């Protein structure tokens, strides 16, 4: 039974490869590797990079994740320690700068929650969420940084 199972295992692995190859070719090449639709309050890593020093980065993750690595110059501000962290954020804040909030991945809600509080409670304008989060930014930096 083991030999038969192994044979069938390999057959299934190979069977899946053909439609996957076709699907990958159609989706990634024909559409030119489309990016997920950008929400009105989102910004892509490339755009945020272009804004350069006009951005105030806000890291909405935990202190541990922030300490492990964050966007250069980012201020830690998360919901779990909001009252404690807001004063330091406001000390760094500049009304002329655009705020970009990020968390770990593409669809984590921490960055969106922090962005909402910045708009609703502090009445700050020009607040965006980084599409793809820290993951996308890290990947963007890795592929676009000259060595």
């Amino acid at each position, binding site marked *: 039974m083991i030999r038969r199972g192994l044979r069938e295992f390999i057959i299934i692995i190979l069977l899946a490869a053909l439609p996957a190859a076709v699907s990958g070719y159609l989706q990634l090449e024909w559409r030119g590797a489309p990016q997920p639709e950008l929400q009105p309050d989102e910004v892509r890593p490339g755009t945020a990079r272009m804004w350069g020093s006009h951005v105030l980065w806000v890291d909405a993750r935990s202190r541990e994740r922030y300490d492990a690595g964050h966007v250069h110059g980012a201020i830690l501000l998360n919901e779990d320690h909001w009252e404690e962290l807001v004063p330091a954020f406001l*000390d760094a804040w500049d009304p002329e700068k655009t705020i970009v909030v990020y968390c770990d991945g593409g669809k984590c809600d921490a960055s969106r929650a922090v962005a909402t509080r910045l708009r609703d*409670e502090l*009445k700050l304008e020009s607040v965006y969420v980084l599409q793809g989060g820290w993951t996308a930014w890290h990947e963007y930096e890795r592929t676009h940084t000259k060595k």
Partner: protein
Amino acid sequence: MRVVVDDPVTVTPALVYWKVGEPNAPKIVRVTTRNPEISLKGLVSGNPDWSGEIETIKPREEFLVRIKPRDTSAKSGAEIKIVTDFPPDQPRSYVVHGRVK
């Protein structure tokens, strides 16, 4: 799982700011309470150069807090606590952030 507890006191906005050189006219923060047991007792400023005063619009329901820095010639900031009298054993405070930028 996140549990959201509705706060009976709303402070809006939680940030008031002036640009350097802007006239230091007071800016208004509106405080509303949904619990008739709550009243505002006073303000505590973390920076002596910042002050505020409370105006009652509707007792135990709506208040205006006027906050201003002493001057706006340089950057400064303060955290101003709005002190309430509720709950009686451990009264809560709400923070308004003031900045000159």
